[in-house]
């Protein structure tokens, strides 16, 4: 990796960690980390006086996230090209896992609204996989920078 870019990429990785942390905090604050919480948040609950989410309401949340997920994933993953991870099978798997988990994370609430409760599990699973994958790529980048500066 080019030495002048190393610091910028290392600090960018720290930003990613902060972004993942803030995203998870919002998720816990607004929805909760259990499948039941997710179902209550999207499908509503008469006992808890929570209205079900509307299709338009979901679109408002999804629209900026679609672009942001794609951009963040592309920017973070393309740094792997400058590391020794470039030609590894693991990197290709990571690309697939990150983009497909981002897609599932975005799509699953719509399917949950259609009454398919299985997608509450998928929402939670894809969120966890997406965030952990981002953290793992950040770790790989940091490790590569540290190794090359030795």
């Amino acid at each position, binding site marked *: 990796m080019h030495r*002048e*870019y190393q*610091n*910028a990429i290392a*600090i*960018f990785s*720290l*930003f*990613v960690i*902060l*972004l993942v942390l*803030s*995203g998870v*905090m*919002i998720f816990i*604050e*607004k929805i909760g980390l259990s499948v039941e919480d997710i179902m209550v948040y999207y499908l509503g609950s008469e006992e808890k006086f929570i209205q079900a989410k509307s299709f338009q309401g979901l679109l408002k949340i999804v629209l900026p996230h679609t672009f*942001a997920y794609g*951009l*963040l994933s592309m*920017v973070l993953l393309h740094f792997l090209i400058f590391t020794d991870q470039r030609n590894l099978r693991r990197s290709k798997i990571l690309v697939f896992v990150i983009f497909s988990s981002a897609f599932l994370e975005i799509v699953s609430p719509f399917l949950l609204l259609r009454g398919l409760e299985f997608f509450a599990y998928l929402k939670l699973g894809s969120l966890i996989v997406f965030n952990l994958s981002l953290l793992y790529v950040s770790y790989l980048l940091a490790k590569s920078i540290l190794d090359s500066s030795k």
Partner: protein
Amino acid sequence: MKFTLVKNLSQDPLMRPILLGLLLCIALYLVVDLVVKHYGFGISPSAVNLTIFGNEDEYIDAISRTSFLEFWHMEIFFIMMILLTLCAVFIRLSGGRKRDKIIMNIMLLSALSSLVFLALGYFVSGHFIEAYSVLFILWHLTAFYMVVFSIRNLYRA
């Protein structure tokens, strides 16, 4: 990105106006961000404290935890993307001097730590807000310097 493939950016007739446009947009963002924050969230410690914690005497409600987290989340995303773009251009246009690297690191670290201090100010203690305000101004100033420096190098013969 295309400009990583062009060897001499300042001599390229197409990349030069493209990068000028990008740098002017970043400069505009930095100025507008200061103005919007001044009239909205606040820049000075007292204004930020008022927004976050409210004031009973003035009947100003504190910001909710969800609203704060959403604001923080968006700030992190915007700042990381804008500063990474600025760094990519700045690195290509600076001569790789030590001073330039230091300035870039100051900007990145002050932006990162300003966001950390903002969260600490909300969740731990209001005293961290002062550090946030100082670092917020610092990263804007250093980013603006990097924009001006990049434009100067772009048009230097």
